[in-house]
């Protein structure tokens, strides 16, 4: 199963790199004589409503989202781990500061930050930089939930028998952190990461309502997934469902590849 997952991910990475050779059309080329075409012939997945090749757009969109979403997730989880871990570890007033910060981040309508962010961005930024900024913001703002989970897990472990035993046997605090605590938190971090990737990809699509989605003509997996809502009235269900399938395969492959646990004590 692991081999299959690794094979799929490698194949996907190759396809993204070699996209131009697999699908001759550019992702922004409008074949205006064949809009909304069904799969077949020149267009393996058909065309969209402006006549753009869906296969080319899928590869380009995957390239954008599957590089940026994991990066944003790493950023978010790293922030979450730093804050959650330190809050659990040090406790006291620092814990209260972090808890307040988390509650604040969770309760405040964050999309107002995103609206304002769009307002301060210059207008003539290229589509790729604008989508990079979007994912950066998602990463910077999306740590609160994970931080809370990590803080909770950290507290549980600090109170558990093995840490107490390690403390009693005179282990140094650094050793406890590195040898006992971190490995035991790995499953939590892993789960949070795997959940964050598709979460951010879909968030980016929803942001188009606020004007912070990917800009024309660049596609992203999110913007392609959004077209799924046309499914009930469209004949090209293959072309519409392909992005969801691609994302599901990627997320599934990550599940199999990242080991669920590491060095449980």
């Amino acid at each position: 199963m692991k081999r299959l997952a690794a094979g799929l991910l490698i194949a996907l990475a190759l396809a993204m790199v070699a996209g131009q050779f697999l699908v001759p059309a550019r992702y922004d080329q409008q074949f205006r004589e064949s809009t909304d075409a069904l799969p077949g012939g020149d267009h393996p997945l058909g065309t969209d409503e402006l006549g753009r090749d869906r296969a080319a757009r899928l590869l380009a969109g995957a390239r954008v989202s599957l590089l940026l979403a994991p990066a944003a997730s790493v950023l978010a989880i790293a922030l979450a781990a730093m804050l959650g871990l330190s809050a659990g570890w040090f406790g006291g007033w620092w814990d209260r500061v972090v808890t307040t910060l988390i509650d604040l981040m969770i309760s405040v309508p964050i999309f107002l930050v995103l609206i304002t962010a769009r307002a301060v961005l210059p207008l003539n930024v290229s589509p790729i930089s604008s989508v990079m900024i979007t994912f950066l913001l998602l990463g910077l703002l999306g740590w609160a939930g994970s931080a809370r989970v990590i803080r909770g897990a950290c507290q549980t472990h600090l109170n558990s028998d093995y840490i107490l035993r390690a403390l009693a046997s005179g282990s140094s605090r650094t050793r406890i952190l590195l040898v006992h605590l971190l490995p035991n938190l790995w499953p939590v971090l892993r789960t949070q990461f795997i959940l964050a990737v598709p979460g951010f990809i879909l968030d980016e699509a929803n942001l188009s309502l606020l004007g912070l989605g990917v800009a024309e003509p660049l596609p992203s997996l999110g913007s392609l997934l959004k077209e799924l809502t046309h499914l009930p009235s469209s004949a090209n269900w293959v072309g519409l469902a392909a992005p969801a399938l691609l994302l599901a395969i990627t997320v599934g492959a990550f599940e199999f590849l990242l080991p669920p646990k590491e060095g449980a004590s």
Partner: protein
Amino acid sequence: MKFLILLMAGTLLAADPVILKMCLRSEPKTFHPLKADEEASETVRFLTAGTLLKINRKTQLREPSLAAKWKTADGGKTVKFELREGLQFSDGTPFTAEDVVYTFQQVAAIRSGFTDSLRQGEATPVATVTGKHEVTVRFAELTPGWERLIDGLGMMSAKSPLGEKAVMGAFMVADHKPGQYIALGRNPHYWVRDAQGKALPKVDQIRLDITANRDLEVLRFKRGEVHMINKVEPDIYQALATQMPEAVRNAGVSFESEQLWFNQAGKAPIPAYKLEWFRSPVFRRAVSESIRRADLAKIAMKGLAVPGVGPVSPGNTVWFNQKLTADVYAPTVALEKLRKAGFQKKSDGLYDAGGHRVEFSIVTNAGNKTRERLAAMIQADLGEIGIRVNVVTLDFPSLLERITRGFNYEACLLGFTNVDQDPNGQMNVWLSSGATHAWSPNQAKPETAWEAEIDKLMKAQARTVVLAKRKEMFDRVQAIVHEQAPFLYLVHKNVLTAVHPSVRNSLVTVLFPHVFSNAEQIELQGLGTYRTAR
């Protein structure tokens, strides 16, 4: 026991109220007839307000209403209205000449886009009682097309304790849950009867559900839970036409347009060389001629629109300048003109005389699929002559702030809806001093010769009574706009509506409101039994 049987019989015999259901796209800002400025409020006003006269939305002719007849005098500056006798407001308060005077006093007291359309400078028309059932209205200046303003002026009661809630129209607001729905009940004192002498309106209630979700609206329409859709988006229309061909109505070219304009405001915080392009008519025309309008109509609008011509849509047969046609796609001609103006096409794009790469952004409102498609197509078309376009979608308040306050934008793509059929309704768009003179508003004095000429023509036509003379002047305005291209008109949309087969007597019109201008006559048949075959 006997009581119970009686009760049951009572509920069985009482007929269910007949409820006509429609959706509003947003919450009406007000139910006050003089403050209604946006479509949702105007819908409620149209259904509830009584007016002195009416413009028939089908024939576009004036028809008497609360005034049985009227006569103009003083070269058209004064109108004498003869009121019908024995009419009452919805709460039973009698309707008198004093109420008309009161309504005009309120026009002077209240500031809104609607009352501004009756304002000349700061002066509003003055009404005086000149007979038992007679009111004379005196306009400060000559007001051609005054009938269309009076058609929107809902009469208010001077005496009713209900204030503006006492109405003279066929319906009155019966229930309102903010953000959810408005129920309009029948006005028990409505004075109009049908041909058989029966009381109108024919339905007991109109329910207006407030929902911005158009997919949901059409889903409920297919189930028969919504009876009419006043404006259907091209995508939805196309899908509905294959599923329920008997329900869709295409009334032809509307008065509305989608347009693109460049920011020419002197105080705009954009690079000076860009402002120079945008202020150059050669540049604007070259861009216009490099857009494939036929494709925009065919693909972005699903073939349910015609290529954009000018400020007046060909659908507006009274005011359209027949000599104008939509710009033809001619990129080589456009490039040649640009070359003469100092621009240079290199292998990687177009450059201006100062060596700046020609690149600009188009802002439009996020979430509007039609506009996003239009922008993406224009982006591709202009890419072919070497212009790099960045499409920026913004949420509506952010967009408004940019185009009305900070002027921090380069080009904007928007549609002007609810366009008045008379040029006087667009005065502030065309006057260079106007606040809605979008490309460069609030000019102290006209910045260009052609804007000065438009100012002169617009003011002159407003002082002219003879329609043919006014048309001649406004034709010239249209020609100037076409030539100078401050607005690049992209497409004129069709009026697309949907009327459920259970609805009888609905009149589909190009003028707003497109499906319920005769709301009091509309009936529902086969209620609850009609099912779509599919």
